[in-house]
């Protein structure tokens, strides 16, 4: 039966316990990575968000870029070929190691655990980076942890620099695929699906603007894969 959007959300219990930032919280669920050695689906697609990100940093060299997607050969080569220094953090792996495979919704609200996680993943001096490739890492954080991470990113990234983050735009999905993002060209990404996972929160444009309210500007690009590519200026 087709239901209008708000009613459908009420039935799903999604809007009733909306997070303070306006996003729709969902219980962090188990990730389901593909079995080791099994096939992974790889797509190549254009990315306006990536193009915008590199437009801002392309004219310069010697910048310090943080990649939260873990180290991949393509990203390392691409960014260092542009003359930049690359820092690599496997954000989701640290998240898993800190809060467990299922996301640990309760621990993600524990201030001590949050502080420990920030020390593991984002322990950098103030204004250290000239750009951050966040990819889809923020989707898997519950509100308390997300707020802390957004604050920390704001602190460690130099003013007037940019973040690139991805968010699934379809709030009807209970699980979303998670990916490894590999830069092919300045405007092209190779996206390898590494499994699927239940996001901790789902966002629309309004909730994303609220999320990055401390930042100078937020710009959205909607892809055919129903993914919001977001460029955030610090």
């Amino acid at each position: 039966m087709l239901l209008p959007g708000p009613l459908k959300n009420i039935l799903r219990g999604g809007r009733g316990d909306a997070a303070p930032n306006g996003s729709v919280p969902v219980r962090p669920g188990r990730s389901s990575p593909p079995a080791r050695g099994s096939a992974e689906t790889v797509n190549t697609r254009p990315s306006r968000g990536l193009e915008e990100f590199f437009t801002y940093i392309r004219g310069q060299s010697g910048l310090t870029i943080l990649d939260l997607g873990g180290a991949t050969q393509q990203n390392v080569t691409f960014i260092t070929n542009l003359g930049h220094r690359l820092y690599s953090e496997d954000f989701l792996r640290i998240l898993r190691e800190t809060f467990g495979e299922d996301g640990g919704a309760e621990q993600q609200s524990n201030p001590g655990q949050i502080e420990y996680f920030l020390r593991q993943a984002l322990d950098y001096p103030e204004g250290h980076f000239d750009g951050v490739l966040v990819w889809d890492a923020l989707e898997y954080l519950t509100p308390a942890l997300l707020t802390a991470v957004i604050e920390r990113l704001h602190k460690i990234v130099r003013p007037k620099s940019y973040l690139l983050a991805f968010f699934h735009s379809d709030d009807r999905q209970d699980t979303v695929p998670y990916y490894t993002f590999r830069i092919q060209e300045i405007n092209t990404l190779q996206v390898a699906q590494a499994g699927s996972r239940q996001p901790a929160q789902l966002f629309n444009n309004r909730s994303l603007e609220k999320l990055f309210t401390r930042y100078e500007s937020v710009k959205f690009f909607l892809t055919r894969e129903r993914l919001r590519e977001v460029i955030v200026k610090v």
Partner: protein
Amino acid sequence: MWNKQRRDDEPSRPFVPTAPTPTPAAAAVPAEPKKEAFTVSTPTRSFEPEPRGSAATIGKAVRINGQINSKEDLYVDGDVEGILEAPEHKLTIGPNGTVHATIKAREVVALGSIQGNVEAADRIEIRKDAKLIGDIRTARIIIEDGAYFKGSIDIVKPEPAKAASRPPQPQAQAAVPVVHAPVQAAPAAVPEKR
């Protein structure tokens, strides 16, 4: 301590092929939007075992605390803490190797665990299942899918050894305007065949 024996018990490391490396020149040209889906199965083939017949070996039951300075290729499969230097040679950290040290070598191959800053004049390879926490300075870097790396990467140009002996350029050429290009990193984004 320094066993020169040949080690045949090391499992061969699976190899995950990496896609061709984009060059900055290619990157600057706006490409036609591509959308292609394909499937990759891993692993596809394996690296050959490290040929280390002539390398000095620190076995997996050995633990060293201090400074090591090697004048030959070195294979570390044990625990080392301190400083590890082989400035003109290849240093391999085996799958059982656990190194908490500052490393300086001509070439570094990581199959085990390294915690510390690494300076590899020629290149560094971080193989699948290897773990490296520290900052890297090198001319070329190879990272396999499945490797864990946390830290920074500085690509430094290799010493221009041949440039010094090159004859001076004719004056006419010097007048040609030079376009500034970004620093070129590893031409060796693709692992070499051995």
